[in-house]
């Protein structure tokens, strides 16, 4: 199991979410984050003095999938999040040891995404 953690521009999220859902990956989480990278900060001026805000708002997506689905999810994120400019963000892939569904106590890869009927083509 892998957790894919991607820091993206806000506007990239909706198309990514829609395509992942389409491909059978409905389960994901997002959080509003602020971070710094090579993209410049924002300069705020207030009554003549300036304040450089070095972090910019980004969106973090977290998706946990089976090993074999990793490539597909990464491709989807790349496809929609890449504008070619500085500030597109980064993707990290992290190994996951266990997964447990709270409602049933079920464990393992079956709890990750809704693979009902195993119709999902990967």
């Amino acid at each position, binding site marked *: 199991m892998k957790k894919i953690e991607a820091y993206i521009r*806000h*506007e990239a999220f909706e198309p990514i979410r829609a395509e992942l859902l389409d491909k059978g990956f409905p389960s994901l989480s997002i959080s509003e984050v*602020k971070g710094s990278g090579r993209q410049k900060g*924002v*300069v*705020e*001026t*207030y009554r003549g003095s300036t*304040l450089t*805000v*070095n*972090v910019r*708002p980004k969106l973090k997506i977290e998706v946990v999938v089976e090993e074999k689905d990793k490539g597909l999810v990464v491709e989807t994120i790349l496809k929609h999040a890449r504008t070619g400019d500085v500030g597109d963000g980064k993707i990290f892939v992290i190994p996951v040891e266990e997964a447990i569904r709270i409602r049933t106590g079920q464990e393992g890869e079956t709890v990750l995404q809704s693979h009902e009927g195993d119709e999902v083509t990967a």
Partner: protein
Amino acid sequence: MTKKLLWALPVGVVAMLAAPQVALADVIDGESGVLTDSAAINTMWVIVAAVLVMFMQAGFMLLEIGFSRAKNAGTVVAKVLTNFSIAALGFWAVGFAFAFGGDSASGNDLIGSTGYFLQDFGDPLTAFPVMGIFDATVEAKFFFQFVFCAVSLAIVWGTTLERIKYGVYIIYGIIFSTLIYPIGAHWVFGGGWLQSNIGMQDFAGSTAVHLIGATGGLAVLLLLGARKGKYGGDGRPRPIPGHSMPLFGLGVFILWLGWFGFNPGTALGVTDGRFAEIVLVTQLACAAGVLTALMTSRRKQKTIDIGMVGNGAIAALVAITAPSGYVEYWAAPLIGGVAGVLVVYGILAIDKVLDDPVGALSAHGLAGIWGTLSCGIFSSPRLSEYNAFGVTNSEGDFLGGFVYASGLLGKGFNEVPGAAFNIEAFEQLGAQALGVTAAFAFVFTASFATFYVIKKTFGLRVTEDEEEAGLDISEHGMYGYPEQFIPQGEFPGAATSPSAAASAATSVKPARSET
């Protein structure tokens, strides 16, 4: 370009003030130099009413801020301050003369031409003929008419939120307050051809103020386009919710309050008691509009949409503006009620094709058209004669709206039983329709041309990145709500706040409780 304009304004004004001038002699002043009692009390009311209308700027500001996202909140404050000020100087310089001035030599059907800079106009009774019979002083009348111009300008921008370049406000504000509004207003209620020759009725400006503003808004919207993300790939509209319904609500109530200056103030005096009757007409219409908008929203959207209920109030107030001085009490809830239904359907329909964030096209445009036309249905001959504007028959009797002129109510001057389909029954309505069409055509053409030139030279719209970041930071370099966008850690002196301060507080508290 913006910079140059900003400098040109004060320089021009100072130059004018330095020019030699004849002292203002208001003939209404008695020989003693003291106003008559009637002039004094009427002047007082006109100023009070004008101040209420001035406060409507705050209403528009809060309404627009509430319907914007938090990243575009601050820019609205700067815009309203700027536009209100530009309109003041522009309307003083030439606007008032174009809108309400007379011209005995060539007639003043198209444009007035006395009272530039409110100077050298001679006898105020002939200089501003349409307001001549009222004895409030010229300064009071000027200020009252100026705040109307400012309201009309404020209405224009409702359609442009969250994506327009700031400089556009300044350029169009100058053109609008010196040319577009004054000419349009002159035609409709400044003694121009629509009012004097056609007999169009527009008491306080459903067309002259609200439709003109909304028409400017339509012109700029067509050239500006929708906000990023408003229409999905399938072309269907997506909601971009505003960030504060409480601010929107405060805006609505301030506007409602302001309308008690807007309509009753247009009576331009108190001694005949008409102003209080117009207060009541205004209130009845607005109340009905809120309730019908609420019911329509519940029926159509399966929910009670807070914004729609508020827009119902605005639409009803806009609609009752034209007929407020011409209709009896019973007609007011009907006019307001129809406006409340109209605005909900209008917003839902317009949203499918045009991105109008506050619903200005419906609340001011459609409701303005309906309000103006409603004079053609409900205007009473009694009040038409009282105001001395409206369509008359060959004997000089005022026909009034359809319900009177057709004889349906049997109360008119024109009691002709069963004459419902007599052409006379529709004459006032026809005058209203012509007035709406002419005002719309003029303002749309002039505004579209102005915005087209602005688009080709200065540009109308911010870049995509700027739109994404929000107009507050991209146009003003600062946020309306800094703490929402700047992490605490980035503020200077962050070491002493907020986590450090929080832990300090917790360590202090027990110590205090021990002592």
